[in-house]
């Protein structure tokens, strides 16, 4: 049958069959865990009764409700949203640049957005931070485009340029933060290491708005992005306006990554690590890769935040330290495997 050989050429179909249920179950377990665990341990029974009370079943005890719904729930959702966004933009950048080492924060978009976000805080608090992050993220993305144009010739050059750009911009985050009023602008470790400690429903709402728009836009490019694997000229021969698509994706990536920085600072290595983990399980086609990277990215940051909260209890460590501790070694390993590095 014609259908049979067609189907059998999809190498990842068996793996995908169990991938999705496993990830969704893991995600639910991680969600319940992070609602229950922390400085005050809430029994799972109380967590469940808080959740059911929200859909109109029963009444929740007051003290667990304020912890579970008032503090931990927005933190959980923000962690998931940030992780999903970073996983998505990481996978998209890697597809666009044909380079597994691409990551928005490694390429300097994170620190660049942090400058804008810190300045935005002075102007307009939390919303200003997110808007500033979006704007500065897009600008940094365009700075990167200069290097990205040579990506097909020398990918390592793009990465090295991005790392240098990131170092310079990180220094400038310091100048902005130390020059600003400490009462209004969060400290430098928030911007460069990332933290979900300040998560509120308000931050969640604002960043969610930006992310919905940019992520929605980015997800329309799935099939087009596959063609970049053939090379930029081949993609153009097949009808892709490669300049336009590259520009649009870089705007989207800069805006989305910038919004996460405005909300929680730079949570590094998520965009690098997650696509790397997910590809062997769902394949290279962006139709499967992008949603998978979103779910696993969300899961990764939720778990990372859980570790950040309970590892050195009662001290809370920045979530970016946890993601970097896991992601850094993977980056080094990937780098050592490259033939051209």
């Amino acid at each position: 049958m014609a259908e049979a050989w067609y189907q059998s050429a999809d190498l990842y179909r068996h793996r995908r069959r169990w991938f999705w249920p496993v990830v969704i179950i893991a995600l639910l377990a991680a969600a319940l865990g992070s609602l229950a665990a922390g400085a005050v341990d809430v029994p799972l029974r109380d967590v469940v009764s808080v959740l059911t009370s929200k859909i109109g079943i029963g009444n929740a005890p007051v003290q667990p409700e304020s912890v579970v719904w008032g503090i931990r729930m927005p933190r959980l959702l923000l962690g998931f949203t940030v992780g999903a966004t970073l996983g998505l933009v990481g996978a998209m950048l890697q597809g666009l640049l044909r380079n597994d080492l691409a990551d928005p924060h490694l390429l300097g978009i994170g620190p660049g957005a942090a400058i804008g976000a810190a300045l935005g805080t002075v102007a307009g608090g939390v919303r200003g931070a997110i808007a500033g992050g979006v704007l500065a993220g897009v600008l940094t993305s365009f700075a990167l485009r200069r290097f990205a144009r040579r990506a097909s010739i020398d990918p390592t050059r793009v990465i090295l340029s991005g790392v240098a750009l990131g170092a310079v911009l990180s220094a400038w985050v310091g100048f902005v933060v130390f020059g600003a009023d400490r009462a209004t602008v969060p400290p430098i470790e928030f911007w460069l290491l990332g933290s979900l400690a300040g998560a509120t429903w308000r931050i969640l709402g604002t960043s969610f708005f930006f992310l919905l728009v940019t992520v929605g836009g980015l997800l329309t490019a799935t099939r087009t992005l596959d063609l970049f694997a053939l090379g930029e000229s081949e993609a153009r021969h097949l009808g892709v306006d490669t300049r336009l698509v590259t520009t649009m994706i870089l705007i989207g990536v800069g805006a989305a990554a910038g919004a996460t920085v405005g909300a929680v600072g730079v949570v590094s290595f998520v965009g690098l690590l997650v696509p790397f983990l997910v590809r062997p399980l769902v394949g290279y086609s962006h139709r499967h890769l992008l949603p998978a990277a979103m779910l696993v990215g969300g899961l990764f940051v939720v778990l990372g935040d859980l570790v950040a909260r309970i590892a050195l209890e009662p001290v809370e460590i920045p979530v970016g330290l946890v993601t970097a501790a896991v992601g850094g070694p993977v980056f080094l390993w990937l780098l050592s495997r490259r033939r051209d590095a």
Partner: protein
Amino acid sequence: MPDQAFIATGLRYTAGGSALIKEVDLSGAPGEVIAVLGPNGAGKSTLLRLLAGDLRPDSGSIRIGDLTIDDATPVELAKVRSVMRQGGNTDIPFTALAVVEMGRYPHRNDPDASLEKDRAAIQVAMERTDTIHLAGRVFATLSGGEQTRVVMARIMAQESPVVFLDEPTTALDVAHQERVLREIRRLAADGRCVVAVFHDLNAASFYADRIVLMANGEVRAEGTPTRVLHPDLLGSVYRQPMVVQTHPTRGCPLVLTVDEDGGLSPPRSPQM
């Protein structure tokens, strides 16, 4: 309905101060295979890249079907011409089937687009190029010859009336070379116009309707293989003495290189 599949007039292209293409006119009819020949640096690939729309000529104009190349969107262009580039990426992580499937991309928003239509085109393309058994293999793991055939299948799936091929047979063994050349003839038999750059003069001799012989960015000779494959002309263009005989079974010109001094001092003693 134009009777020419494509028409290029007055093409000039200069890069880095040197004129790579000087005043070239070329057109092709549906059903025709045009071989572009010439020594290294003659401008063959540059000409193909101009025709494909990759490079913008300094002057001159190119029409493919009803489209003027400058005014066409990438998708419009992809529906009327397909391109096999020389030395494309080999480390593609997608399967052969996925790569061939990408050939259908320009048709995704056609009014009559359907999954069945795409699959039929893909299947025909892969059967003809003998790549069905490679469908589930990752492109990067295929041999050079297999990769060329998969790319050929991708181009066939694109179903464009004009096809540009830059050295499509270079990486192939003799059997697969003949196979790809027969497929090129079949594309022409389906009414497409194929323009291909070759190094193998005899492949062009047997399979092309018309040969365009280039040197120094200009067309030195153009016409049927019998007319263009002339020893004096080839000798001066390639700076290599040649003789032309008649192929014993195919009847077309058979080009052979000979020694500078007429064979008086062979590089290797003839084996007895």
